């Protein structure tokens, strides 16, 4: 199988940002990630530029989390190159430029901690080793809580917050480090409808602030309207990379009479040239009884 990830690579997916080299936030070339010597995701070639809002979608076990953890340096980099902000990943000292929002259904409740205390930990990479948070740092923490709509819950103990609110505490924690890109793992999973709404508002606010975002998710849902680009991962490879319009076109090709409600993620990856539309032939292969 070809390692060509997309037929749309030549057209920069974010029309608002000119493609200068300094704008490249994340650059993968033939990268493989996994655990030990065993690669889970292979042949990943992907360039993410400043200002882009990219969804990485794929079913469970597709390798999308492996891709994300690989970028964050949380698993083993088996082969290929990973360049972050123009620096090889292993040489990047300032890891807090990557703002990681992990998937946690609940925050650790082994000891009590306030939302502000949790968000303050996101500020630590920006302060001196033995130092404490200064007034400016506290303001940044307060602003991060404000952006996610939790200003009036700063002193609330996190385990008493709802699941959606806890998710926003984690977004605020990442924002407190003033990252250059936010990498979010399933921000909407397990969040009820009302809180999805609030979460979408928060993401809107981040978009207004030109925050570059990589959102790993198994369903696009309410996020789709925010995106400038969609990357589909399945079977340990990147199967599609293009604009939402191209994605919709490709998806409609595949699924115009498909009854699965997981249609977001079922772009078939066994063929190159997805957007050219030769997918009708595979439709029956993937069809569920």
């Amino acid at each position: 199988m070809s390692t060509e990830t997309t037929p749309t690579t030549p057209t920069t997916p974010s029309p608002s940002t000119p493609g200068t080299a300094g704008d490249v936030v994340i650059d993968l070339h033939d990268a493989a990630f996994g655990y030990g010597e065993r690669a889970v995701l292979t042949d990943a070639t992907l360039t993410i530029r400043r200002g882009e809002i990219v969804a990485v979608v794929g079913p469970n076990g597709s390798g999308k989390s492996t891709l994300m953890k690989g970028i964050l340096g949380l698993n083993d980099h088996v082969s290929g190159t990973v360049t972050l902000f123009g620096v090889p990943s292993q040489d990047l000292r300032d890891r807090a430029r990557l703002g990681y929002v992990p998937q946690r259904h609940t925050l650790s409740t082994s000891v009590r901690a306030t939302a502000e205390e949790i968000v303050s930990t996101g500020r630590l990479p920006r302060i001196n080793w033995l130092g404490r948070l200064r007034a400016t740092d506290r303001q940044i923490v307060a602003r991060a809580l404000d952006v996610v709509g939790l200003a009036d819950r700063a002193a609330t103990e996190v385990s008493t917050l709802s699941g959606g609110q806890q998710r926003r505490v984690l977004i605020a924690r990442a924002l407190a480090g003033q990252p250059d890109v936010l990498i979010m793992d399933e921000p909407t999973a397990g969040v009820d409808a009302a809180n999805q709404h609030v979460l979408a508002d928060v993401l809107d606010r981040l978009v207004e602030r030109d925050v570059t975002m990589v959102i790993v998710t198994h369903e696009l849902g309410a996020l789709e309207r925010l995106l400038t680009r969609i990357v589909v991962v399945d079977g340990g490879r990147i199967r599609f990379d293009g604009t939402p319009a191209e994605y919709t076109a490709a998806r409609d090709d595949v699924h115009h009479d498909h009854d699965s409600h997981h249609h977001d993620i079922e772009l078939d990856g066994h063929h190159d040239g997805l957007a050219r539309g030769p997918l009708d032939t595979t439709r029956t292969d993937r069809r569920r009884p």
Partner: protein
Amino acid sequence: MIDLLTVDFMQRALIAALLVGTVAPMVGIFLVQRRLSLIGDGMGHVALAGVAIGLVSGTAPVLTALIAAVVAAVVIELLRAKGRTNGDVALAVIFYGGIAGGVVIISKSPDGTPANLMKYLFGSILTTQRGDLYVFAGLALVIAVTTWALRPRLFAVANDEEYARAVGIPVLPLNIVLAVLTATTVVVAMRVVGLLLISALMIVPNAASQLVARSFSGGLRWAIGFGLVSSVGGVALSYPLNTPSGGTIVLLAVGLFVVTAVVTGVLARVGTRRHDVAETHAHEHGTLCGHPAVTHGDHVDYVHDGHLHAAHEGHYDEHGVHHDHPAEADTTPAPTTGSRP
């Protein structure tokens, strides 16, 4: 009490209790946070082997115990970092190897009587020597300063290790530092609390403080308070009662925990009865929600369909009708089924 202070060994024991009561909960809160409540117990086992070596070789048992516990602490953290599934079994091997070695070696020492062993295992107010006290004070100072200085980072690592690793906080070195702090605390506490009971003084005051506290810093302060009351109180009581100090300290700590649990339980019950929760609405109040914000006592309320809504935990509390916004006021006094305007 004045009598107690005039007795020489009681002075020393009380000072040792003061040191232990302060530092043990400071270190213990991170162990509770990392769900490693029993690790101090294991290090006590290994420290016993150190004590035995000291007694047999004629070296200061405090020094040999410190060396044994610190080495064990580093090995344990390295094993944990390797993430092997049988890491737990490896811990058991180290811990039981430690206590078994301790018992066997101590039997070969000139004063290796069972009574002697009991003092190390369960604490005794009679055993703190003047020289020990200086060492304990020095070690306690090191523990307190290190814990205070590294507190934000130890908290971050214990709270979310994966995140800490992602943002470049050195997770393994911090975990090793915490393990060494734990080992050192075990040694500082071995005279008055005893090697088998020290873990309790790290954990039980924190268990009680978690019932009262609403924040991490609050939890730490309460834990130190509970720790000091238990350790100093326990030593003071053990003299007139003629009981082993370690057991007395720990029973006092457990007693404080039970009393705190009952009191907070009763208060929580009364509290929920007095507290009206507002109707649920799909949005969060804030600067952009469109609802006027008004000050109400020590906090800010939002006027939602004429009712005051105050943020509380994961929901909003109903704080009654607001009279300055009659245009919005609703005639029904009960919580409204308001929707976003």
